[in-house]
């Protein structure tokens, strides 16, 4: 190789490398490089109890480092003989959206950008046509004359389309009927979001942000532990509460008593009583064959 061509080749190479380095520069702004440990973390169902203990401790460490508050993260398993069902009384709901905010606080949902699991629809009296719904109603006071309100969240389907489409088994249905997500396994393809007929799934388009003082430290692995950028999340019936015998946050907060929750396998539960005694229930988009565990009903 001659001197000139050598010089030319090295000049071209140097320019190329410099351009490559310059184009890779935004990677420096990344605040969330996956560590080797997180990169190699096993799938939820394949973890041994020891693996899980290690992962839970790591999550606690990481959360403490980020929020200055040490959470208590548990891996709660479904309880035998329990299948959760939700009943929502459309006659009673006043559209106050207290459930939405309680849910955000309980489940450590991102405040910026905003992520909310519950969407309350305002519908004109007389019709369940969802295309007439107003998502962003903001009157001075609720309820308003001529309207009724329908909160929608994950319907915990018996035949969930989101589970079927996930290419990596990152979302599945547990024995107590709750469809959960392994946030550390989700690849963020958003196919489940496209598949859900209830628009119940939310995606972390960027790193979620929660004010330090608002963090709920009572966490579970499949529930409300902080999520990372680029993964799905959704309502999980407050797994960290319901699997230890408490009500979901939305049920507890509802001032109108419109929300009822319980074990359908227990004949003495409130939901069993409602499903036995009311004549008409609405399962949203029943024709989809998804068979929701979420029932809307009316008084009378």
């Amino acid at each position, binding site marked *: 190789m001659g001197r000139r061509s050598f010089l030319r080749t090295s000049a071209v190479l140097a320019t190329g490398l410099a351009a490559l380095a*310059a184009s890779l520069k*935004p*990677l420096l702004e990344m605040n969330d490089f996956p560590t080797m440990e997180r990169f190699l973390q096993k799938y939820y169902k394949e973890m041994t109890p020891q693996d899980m203990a290690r992962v839970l401790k790591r999550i606690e460490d990481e959360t403490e480092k980020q929020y200055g508050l040490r959470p208590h993260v548990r891996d709660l398993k479904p309880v035998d003989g329990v299948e959760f069902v939700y009943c929502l009384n459309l006659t009673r709901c006043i559209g106050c959206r207290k459930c939405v905010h309680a849910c955000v606080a309980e489940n450590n949902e991102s405040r910026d950008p905003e992520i909310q699991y519950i969407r309350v629809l305002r519908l004109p009296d007389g019709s369940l046509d969802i295309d007439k719904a107003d998502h962003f109603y903001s009157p001075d006071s609720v309820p308003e004359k001529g309207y009724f309100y329908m909160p929608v969240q994950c319907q915990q389907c018996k035949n969930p389309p989101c589970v*079927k*489409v*996930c290419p990596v088994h990152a979302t599945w249905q547990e024995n107590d009927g709750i469809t959960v997500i392994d946030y550390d396994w*989700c690849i963020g393809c958003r196919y489940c979001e496209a598949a859900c007929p209830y*628009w119940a799934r939310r995606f972390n388009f960027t790193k979620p942000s929660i004010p330090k003082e608002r963090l709920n430290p009572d966490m579970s692995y499949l529930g409300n532990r902080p999520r990372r950028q680029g*993964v799905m999340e959704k309502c999980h019936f407050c797994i960290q509460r319901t699997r230890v015998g408490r009500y979901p946050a939305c049920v507890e907060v509802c001032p109108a008593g419109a929300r009822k929750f319980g074990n359908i396998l227990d004949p003495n539960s409130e939901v069993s009583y409602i499903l036995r005694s009311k004549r008409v229930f609405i399962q949203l988009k029943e024709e989809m064959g998804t068979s929701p565990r979420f029932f809307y009903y009316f008084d009378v």
Partner: protein
Amino acid sequence: MRRAIRNYFVFLGRCLRIAFVGDWRYYAWIGLLSVICLLGLNAYCRQFAHGLIVTGMSDEVSWGVYIANFTFLVGVAAAAVMMVIPVYIYKNEDLHDLVIFGELLAVAAILMCLAFVTVDLGRPDRFWHLIPGIGQFNFPKSMLSWDVIVLNGYLLLNVHICGYLLYCRYRKTKPGKWFYIPFVFIAIVWAVSIHTVTAFLYVGLGGRPFWNSSIVGPRFLASAFTAGPALIILAMQVVRRVTSSPSPGADALAVGNASVAPSKRRAATLEDFALLTRYLPEIGSVPMETRQQLLPMAEVLEVQPGGVLLRQGKIEDRAFFILRGCVVVKREEGGRFRITRTAGPGEQIGEITALNATPRTATAFAEEPSLVLSLSADALRLLMKSPQVNKIVRSRMSERLLITDRALMTLRSIVQVSMLINVFLLANEVFKEFYSGNLHVVSSKYLFVGLRHHHALVPWIWTAIAFNLVAMVLLVLPLSRSLKWLNLTCILCVVGIWIEKGMGLVVPGFIPTPLGEIMEYSPSLNETLVCFGIWSFGLLCYTIFLRMSVPILQGRLCRDNEGVSNHSVAAAPLPG
């Protein structure tokens, strides 16, 4: 065995080296693509660091232009099979070399597809969760897992077929049937499957009535087999033009070596045609009236030895038939002239560039005092109206061409039929949606006429429909047999279908949301840059594939000349 592996690596090494050899236009093109690639990479790094928030996507419209491009490109990749079927099933020889170009295009398209799905992932670092055996592969339940299998399988199939055929060509051995024919047939079925599976990604979602329609699969195939071959027609003409252009300085050299222009010229007479008929009996089929018409457009040149008839690199529209004497055609390669052929009485010269308006591919000198009939391109076309003349001229021409007009016309008929089916299926869909008028029509309403004062996609879809219809009419008319019109038609097809099945299919599926909310989508600048980056990456791959394969198919890069420098191998244009 060791020797075979060594030989193979020598082949790969030479292919790789030739990718970096070319004239200034080649470097400029590669440079431009690399710059856009890097811009795209930069945009993607920003997205990787900050998340998909830098795109225009939202929870409402959770797939956008990435998945739209992915869908379109799967179609392009699948369409390569349309070239394979005529060749291997109907033994159409015209398309033979085109098959390799088509499959290389498929490889480039699949690479782009894989890039587009990767940039759409929220957690690309967890891609390994998708690898069967290592990760958790939800097969056969998830259609996405099917897509992973069929796309990667298709990539391997095409890489194998192209690689094997090219290597055989390089070694000048006959390809072993068992090494590729079975794979070709598997690839045919596989091509249909990749696009059907991609359609099923959408069709399978019961919650999205806009997609949940059984016609989407057939529509995907019809539009793919329109846009794919249309893209190949365009690409092939670029290849033809570029590979037939001379290397820099050839023109100057040719002028330097050649003596002055022909000494004498005079108007042609009917006797000249009679003379030509003695050597080229097919001319006898040209009726007297036509010959009369030809006379004003024809002249006869008397050329002295060493006189130049035509020069490499020049764009002229004249073709020549030798009446007496002998003409040598020489091609300039890396500063040296090489005789490519000699033409005697009755033979033609310069008809390729006359008909295609491409630069001359070689220089022609008279070797002895010669008499030559010179025709304008129009005259040549008039002459070729006679089927016998047409046949002999074309067949002589295609012997020397890698990509013949006949091959392009075969592709045209594929595009023609597919476009008719495509428009028909679209009409079916529109009728079903709007005539029944049930509640599921909202997404179509949003797409075609706008919904509740939201109509971002309306101008796009009507542009697409207009393009498709105009292209369909042009394809049906004989007008599109002319390459100029065919090119326009192909551009209309590609753009129309890109809109229709890209943005026009993906976005309306999300609008309104299953809860009736309308949130419009338009790609962000960062997202657009990533798309441009991936397209440039694909074009870069395709350019390099062609850079390697054209000299091999032309026989210039072969095992016999392993010692020869790549520059002299690369510089040579098509024989002409």
